[in-house]
């Protein structure tokens, strides 16, 4: 296989509470609270190939946004390396690292806060491309109109301010800005979460179309399994900063192995003419400040065994590019799914 476009190797990112001067002093004198470490991303490796869309799924606080930010170099990993076209970005000479960084772009979740309210749409879209010398200053206006055209924004939007745009139009501006520099990989961090279903459909179809016409790879971060299933070629499921399962979209949704993946799928709303009895996962998402021992999902897992409390399961290969971090054998614990199906009842009309 050819060299992956973007490779994250054993990435960990730990956040430490930013203490005030008194806490620091107290700790020096050994009377204060010990420092608390929050492991947002714990030893995650993933690969993005050229032209591919990888979905990252998980609950709030599972580290999916942190991972996305590490991937585009907005955050430095605490350990591990990010390789772009086979080269570790951290060890590249400054000029080359800059070029690599700018091949990696991001589209943010909230289209209301990620645009500068005092800057006209055209400037927002084209500023980066001009600053990096991709577009001559004299051609900036034409280039902005072209970049906006690619995402379906009319040329007369160029002199408007973000407040005059709807949510869907703003998200298009965010996408146009990311694509204007001809990126190799774009990270979409919950890019459609804040939008109405009808606008969400417009943006998803736009992404599908853009991907066909240009060859950028993408990482699509979302908590919505239906959206990820629609857009991604491959899916990574995170729980408390660790990868619990990853596979091609078809394999993962047809044949999920990890109990957490199965539980997530059972809970996702589906458009069915059948009333559903919602069966929540028992218990609470544990605090990432004090994660459970062994398999982090064991306190909530319906199939937990004694060894799950002590042994952390490693990612195990189950099939072609299908990995799962669970002690269960393939086929074990499947009864849960049949039970779930039996709980659905037909609505009496």
């Amino acid at each position, binding site marked *: 296989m050819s060299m992956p476009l973007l490779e994250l190797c054993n990435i960990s990112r730990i956040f430490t509470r930013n203490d005030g001067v008194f806490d620091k002093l107290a700790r020096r004198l050994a009377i204060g609270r010990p420092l608390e470490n929050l492991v947002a991303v714990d030893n995650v490796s993933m690969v993005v190939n050229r032209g591919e869309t990888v979905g990252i799924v998980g*609950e*709030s606080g599972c580290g999916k946004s942190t991972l996305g930010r590490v991937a585009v170099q907005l955050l430095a990993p605490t350990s591990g390396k990010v390789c772009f076209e086979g080269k570790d970005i951290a060890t590249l000479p400054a000029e080359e690292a800059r070029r690599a960084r700018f091949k990696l772009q991001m589209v943010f979740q909230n289209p209301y806060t990620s645009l500068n309210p005092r800057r006209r749409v055209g400037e927002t879209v084209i500023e980066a491309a001009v600053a990096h010398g991709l577009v001559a200053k004299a051609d900036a206006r034409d280039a902005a109109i072209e970049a906006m055209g690619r995402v379906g924004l009319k040329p007369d939007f160029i002199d408007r301010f973000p407040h005059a745009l*709807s*949510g869907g139009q703003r998200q298009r501006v965010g996408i146009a800005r990311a694509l204007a520099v001809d990126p190799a990989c774009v990270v979409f961090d919950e890019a459609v979460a804040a939008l*109405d*279903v*009808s606008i*969400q*459909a*417009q943006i*998803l*179809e736009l992404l599908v179309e853009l991907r066909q016409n240009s060859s950028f790879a993408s990482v699509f971060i979302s*908590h*919505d*399994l*239906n*959206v990820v*299933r*629609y*857009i991604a070629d491959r899916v990574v499921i995170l729980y408390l900063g660790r990868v619990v399962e990853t596979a091609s979209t078809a394999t993962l*949704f047809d044949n999920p192995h990890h109990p957490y993946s199965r*539980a*997530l799928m059972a*809970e*996702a*709303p*589906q*458009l*069915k*003419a*059948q*009333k*559903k*009895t*919602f*069966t*929540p*996962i028992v*218990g*609470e*998402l544990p605090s990432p400040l004090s994660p459970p021992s062994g398999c982090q999902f064991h306190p909530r897992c319906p199939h937990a065994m004694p060894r799950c409390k002590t042994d952390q399961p490693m990612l195990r290969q189950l099939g072609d590019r299908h990995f799962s971090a669970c002690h269960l054998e393939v086929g074990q614990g499947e009864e849960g799914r049949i039970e779930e199906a039996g709980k659905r009842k037909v*609505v009496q*009309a």
Partner: protein
Amino acid sequence: MAEPILSVSGLCTEVVSDERVARIVRDVSFDLYPGEILGVVGESGCGKSMMGFALLNLLDPPARVASGSVSYAGQDITKLPHEDLRGIRGNRIAMIFQDPMVSLNPVLTIGEQMMEAVLAHQNVSREEAKARTVEVLEMVGIPKPAERLKAYPHEFSGGMRQRVVIATAFLNQPDIIIADEPTTALDVTIQAQILAEVQKMAAQNGTAVIWISHDMSLLSGLADRVMVMYAGQIVESGSTASIIEQPNHPYTRALMGAIPVPGRKKLEILRGFPPNLLGEFTGCAFAPRCPVARDHCEVERPELRGTELSHARCHYPLQEGARS
């Protein structure tokens, strides 16, 4: 069928500014029955939230109920004086708002504000009120609720706060719960937990629920009946199963076509925007965006056609049987 617990008739609301009048909710009528979960679906700005507010007479100037009635227990809520409304709001009819940070008082502990809601409406001791508070917090999955009563809202995560707001609505075992997109900001796992509780309340206590959402896939698993709103009007209403399997209004079909469901290769895209609500529509409000509109639709306003429980506002409904 039993007697409706809430009966809404010809409800219209408007917002007046600079001598211009925006008519946000236009002639909405429906009945709500005990134990029923009624879903209200539509895009942002279709008037679904304002309708929810109007049901409890919660509109503040410049917004107001212009005409119509909301009858509950033989009284018209839109005409009741404030003292009488206090006995109903939060007690017999509870509302769950979208943003938990706005609905909770930041300077009171969770326990204080929740117990206040019990003590205001029920003649019970503080101990009993506390026990009830702990009980409902447990229902929505707050771990160790008795210890968390002393916590302030800022000590809770967004999802936990929203669960507190939802638990508060459960406190007095209301007859009706009006929920305005309360789970939009929550994870699917927590959403499932709350939906499970709501279903249980409706089935066991006969609580009627009005669940406002923009997501038809969520309502499909939850609601018994669905009303689709567009430009302040009900454009279609019927049992959830019939709406999903045989939608009559092109807008309903477009809303569902936009949802990424397994196996769908292309999402349906609804072009354009909902209409300006300042003026009157000459024809069908949806005609400019409608994929199957004909000349006639631009001229004549369609009326709701069908039975009381299943109807659509369309000149050319999609199902054969509904055409006249």
